[in-house]
């Protein structure tokens, strides 16, 4: 692939997917700096592999798979387990005005408290809206396992949030 068409493809992919992937990476890692690093690494890997992407799956699924792998690698790094990845007060969303929704914040916090595998299933199924088969391909398990994880995640969220989760 020529340099011009590669950079055009990169720009298009960034415009189309950067926001949702960034949000997903932040939900994965819960650290702004790491999420931004993950984003750069994701698009760097995609940029390198542009010529080899054969379209066996959708572009969104392909990029999401790369982002998931990047996030997993970052999470596995030894220092990640020791670093304080909490959000600083300056980074907290404004709690007044601006359409802030407390129930949405509670749901986001509850998702953060899910075990990694269940959180991953929720992010891919509910946030990225991928099919169970696509998620199975990304995560490397059977679709039935994905289905079970999503069921468990919903049950946990309902347990944590009660009616607030069921009825928004």
């Amino acid at each position, binding site marked *: 692939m020529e340099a011009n068409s590669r950079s055009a493809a990169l720009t298009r992919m960034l415009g189309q997917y950067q926001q949702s992937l960034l949000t997903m990476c932040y939900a994965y890692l819960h650290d702004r700096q790491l999420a931004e690093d993950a984003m750069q690494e994701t698009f760097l890997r995609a940029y390198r592999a542009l010529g080899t992407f054969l379209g066996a799956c959708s572009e969104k699924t392909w990029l999401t798979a790369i982002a998931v792998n990047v996030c997993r690698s970052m999470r596995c790094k030894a220092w990640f387990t020791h670093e304080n990845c909490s959000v600083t007060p300056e980074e907290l969303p404004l709690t007044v005005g601006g359409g802030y929704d407390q129930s*949405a914040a509670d749901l986001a916090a509850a998702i953060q408290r899910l075990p990694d595998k269940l959180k991953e299933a*929720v992010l891919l199924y*509910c946030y990225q809206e991928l099919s169970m088969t696509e998620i199975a391909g990304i995560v*490397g398990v059977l679709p039935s396992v994905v289905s079970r994880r999503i069921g468990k995640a919903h049950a946990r969220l309902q347990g944590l949030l009660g009616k607030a989760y069921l009825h928004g």
Partner: protein
Amino acid sequence: MDDYRGNVRRVQQALNQDAAFIRPDPYLARRVMLAEEAEGGGRRRRKLSTGLALVIVLPAAVAAAGVVVYQYYQRAIRNEAAYGAYQQWPLAEKLDFIEQLVSEGVSLDAEQLALLQDAGLSPDAQERLADAIITDHFGDGHDGSLSAVSIMEADGAFRHLIPGGQGMDERNGPGRRFRRDRIRNASAS
């Protein structure tokens, strides 16, 4: 469906709000291209993948441990390096693997094997049947992902490494009778 849409909308709203303070980087395209140039256009030396490392290390480790090495272990390891866990293998590899198991004298369900020979089966049905035969024999692996190590483990290959370990070389693992039902379902469909 409404429940699904409702959940999706709520999760998206929650996560978008949670990450609202992070804005996409308008210079990311430029930074990616600079990083690519700085790292030599992707012509870096490839890191050793886990699968390849397994291909190199596992046979030696297994042999050193005095474990009987079947040819199909090597095939499983090679396939794992190329495609990932058993579930990701192409149908042709799954069928070849079963053929190799039979040729090495592994006792598989004769009824299911006969069904698999049926030329009228669709590729999907063949794959379901092949999966059922393999998972009945070796189990589902860990968390639904059947790896080369899981296959060897199911054979009891590591039994003598665990003090007092029972292994599964008698092929009577606790999950076996429950997997029977799945075989029947696969062949029925």
